[in-house]
């Protein structure tokens, strides 16, 4: 495989002078530079040490809440997506219909509606949810073995109902987000598994591997390469969508910004938060691209 110079299509020489596209391009870039300078100068001009001292710790805590929410719901969603994807691919009419309805509902309605449905809607069933419960062990006593390090010393058994779970806004957010992302992740998983050619299943079967072995050793390694980018996109979408929980009174990053804005009427409350989200999304996007480059190295020629 040698590429001769004649085969390489050279890019056309750069246009000289000032064609129209260059004028527009420079104007647009100039606009963005002005816009960026405007924001930076505003932030410098409106620099307020009190604002920072007061709200920066709150923002950090909010960031923690956001990341926790996203991580828990992504993991729960991934677990839940396996049976849904199985249902979608199943030959059983009833199972596949059920999984299809699940996916259609969660992809067809806004996440905000789903979150309201869980947070406000389940309040309608307060009595029913309060009747269903279980005994759970609760650590009632901590024993300190070192500064900042404690071990559980005493455990009591307490009665917990479903209402105890659903009355907390954070739990409702996690619940709604996990159900939502499970629908999207199930579709990603299904698409990735179906992208592996049928011959791979047949080849594995002819070697005497059973279904689960085939899936684990042959199909999934190939499917997950395909699925990586969609999974990355889903993670980014979840980080962005997590701002929604601020509306149901969870103090995540956006919730802290809302609080800071309501107290100070200072728009920089939202500008800082926007910057944090932007940085977070860019890190994730480039991270996923980096991982994809690394794991597809053997496919490059």
């Amino acid at each position: 495989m040698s590429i001769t110079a004649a085969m390489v299509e050279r890019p056309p020489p750069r246009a000289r002078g000032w064609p129209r596209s260059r004028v527009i391009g420079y104007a647009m870039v100039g606009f963005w530079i002005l816009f960026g300078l405007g924001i930076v100068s505003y932030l410098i001009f409106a620099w307020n040490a009190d604002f920072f001292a007061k709200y920066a710790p709150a923002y950090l805590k909010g960031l923690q809440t956001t990341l926790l929410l996203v991580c828990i719901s992504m993991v729960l969603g991934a677990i839940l997506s396996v049976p849904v994807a199985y249902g979608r691919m199943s030959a059983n009419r009833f199972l596949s219909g059920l999984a299809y309805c699940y996916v259609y509902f969660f992809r067809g309605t806004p996440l905000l509606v789903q979150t309201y449905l869980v947070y406000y809607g389940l309040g309608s069933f307060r009595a029913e949810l309060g009747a269903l419960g279980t005994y759970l062990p609760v650590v009632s006593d901590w024993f300190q073995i070192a500064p900042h390090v404690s071990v559980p010393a005493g455990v009591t058994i307490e009665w917990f109902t479903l209402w105890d779970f659903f009355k907390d806004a954070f739990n409702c957010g996690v619940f709604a987000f996990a159900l939502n992302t499970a629908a999207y992740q199930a579709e990603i998983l299904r698409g990735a598994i179906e992208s592996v050619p049928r011959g791979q299943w047949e080849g594995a079967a002819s070697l005497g591997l059973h279904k689960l072995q085939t899936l684990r050793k042959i199909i999934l390694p190939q499917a997950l390469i395909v699925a990586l980018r969609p999974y990355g996109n889903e993670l980014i979408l979840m980080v962005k969508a997590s701002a929604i929980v601020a509306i149901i009174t969870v103090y995540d990053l956006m919730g802290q910004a809302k609080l800071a804005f309501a107290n100070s009427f200072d728009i920089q409350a939202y500008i800082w938060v926007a910057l944090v989200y932007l940085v977070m999304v860019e890190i994730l996007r480039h991270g996923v691209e980096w991982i994809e480059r690394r794991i597809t190295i053997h496919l490059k020629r």
Partner: protein
Amino acid sequence: MPSQNIWILLTWGPDGWIDDIAYGALVTIALALATLPIGLTIGFFVAWAKQSEEPSLRLAANIYTTVFRGLPELVTLFLFFFGVPILLQHLVRYFQPDATIDVNSFVAGMIVLSLIFSSYASEVFLSAFRAIPKGQYEGGYAIGLSNWLTMRKVILPQLLRIAFPGLENCWLSLLKDTSLVSVVGLAETLRNAYTAARVTKHAFLFYGVAAMVFLGLAVVSSFATSAILRSLGRREAQR
């Protein structure tokens, strides 16, 4: 406490809430339809800039999509809804010291959704641009069409056809994103469901109805788009 008969609540009229929610659904549809042409136009030009040979145009377009795809929709909306009045007020007060400015939530929603929709649509348009062979442009120039006429008469018809399935996805997420505008007080489906839930205490019922409205809109648009696809002369089961 919930006391009223839910079947009365689900009627049209003074005791029922269905008329309010139907009105909200109309606002939802109006918002999405008003956003669509603006978003499509901006998205097309951003994609055009992205595949241009001029690096400065590409840079400007890439900044645009990075910003509006990277920011959460809610943050963009709040920044716009609270930030722009402050900005305008500073400008207007040079001329008229006692002016106050309010941004209409419909207009704010329309602008913010256009920005978001166009940045996603531009990615769809961009991949469609890449699917069109160079010979199409060269053919256009060879018969003496100008840059703009080649784009409009030769490229755009093919582009729309290729981009259509991707744009359908953008449209569906636009429909869902309209619900976010309820947060800044636009009386659309979700906002009216919220009011109904507050007043009647039947929260699950009315949020369920709102979910069904959005689901219904998604079903209707998928019927509409498959009809358009058929009229574009393409079969669904290609590939």
